[in-house]
């Protein structure tokens, strides 16, 4: 969807349009920088963290969305597995109806030790035109988006995954290979914006 923005604007003029129109960083373009405070009170800067890691995985997540929650264990396990490879996973909760305390207790309940941030006013979600949870963006050390979309194709059965898209993207990035599938899609819950 993100690659269709220019087409979308044109299409709107032709009365063929999608209601929510925003500018999403295309894969290969600069990831919008942002600074937020984590739910445990630490400052976070995407540009700083991108420079000091081999990749940063920005995940738009929810405490209530069944699709996002289906990936809780996979988020925990991937964040842990890739930490030693220089990849930082971070969670952003942009839903107006989920407060910091809820996000914090949810993180503890699911062993999410990676940085998690509330996104007041869904400003970061707007910057990325993130529409639903879970959606992930992989940002390289140069601050460019290298992958956007889902974690994998099978939210119902982790053992039945046949297209581990995020893992594939990270492995390609870490080995200097081009990411084969840069944009993927899956169902998810609309981000509850202000």
């Amino acid at each position, binding site marked *: 969807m993100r690659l269709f923005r220019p087409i979308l604007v044109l299409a709107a003029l032709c009365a063929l349009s999608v209601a929510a129109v925003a500018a999403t960083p295309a894969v290969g373009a600069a990831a919008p920088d942002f600074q937020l405070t984590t739910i445990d009170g630490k400052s976070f800067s995407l540009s700083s963290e991108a420079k000091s890691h081999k990749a940063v995985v920005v995940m738009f997540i929810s405490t209530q969305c069944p699709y996002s929650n289906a990936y809780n264990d996979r988020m925990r396990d991937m964040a842990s597995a890739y930490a030693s490879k220089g990849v930082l996973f971070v969670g952003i909760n942009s839903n107006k109806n989920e407060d910091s305390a809820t996000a914090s207790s949810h993180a503890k309940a699911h062993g999410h030790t990676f940085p998690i941030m509330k996104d007041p006013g869904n400003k970061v979600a707007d910057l990325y035109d993130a529409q639903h949870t879970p959606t992930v963006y992989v940002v390289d050390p140069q601050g460019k988006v290298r992958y956007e979309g889902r974690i994998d194709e099978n*939210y119902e059965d982790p053992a039945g995954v046949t297209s581990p898209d995020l893992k594939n993207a990270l492995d390609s990035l870490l080995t200097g290979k081009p990411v084969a599938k840069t944009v993927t899609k899956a169902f998810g819950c609309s981000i509850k914006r202000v």
Partner: protein
Amino acid sequence: MIALFFVFGSGSLAGEGLTRLAGEIDAEGLREAVAREKGHVVLVNFWATWCVPCREEFSSLARLQERNRSAGLRVVGVSTDFENQRTAVEKFLAERRPPFPNYHRKKGGDDQDFIDAVDSRWGGELPFSVLYDRSGRKVRAFSGKLPIAAAEREIRKLLANP
């Protein structure tokens, strides 16, 4: 390939108080369902029982259908609930008794293929609605809750064109 299964024989898109799923549907089946309604304006709404905004707008969709049925609007619902939530879907329909048919997305295949087949600009967020004119041409897609007033104005413009 015919990929639409009328499990309960609710093939018509114009029913009254439909309390059960009309069947399973995939992208091809949906295309066929819309094509069968040529001559009507069709609004397809993708929803799920766990999706709060979807539940919130369901009654509005029912009223929208009722207000515009005689003029030629046909609303079609497609649940994207998990396969193991099918009972919850049936319970929801039994409670809400929508005046339009609802299908359950057929299990199997990659969700991305279904999403792209419905609308290449759709990212997978729910709810999502697609509006087709009387000729079956897609004229608009709505991401998130349907802006009922604006959508109805557009629908009535389409309905005004025979």
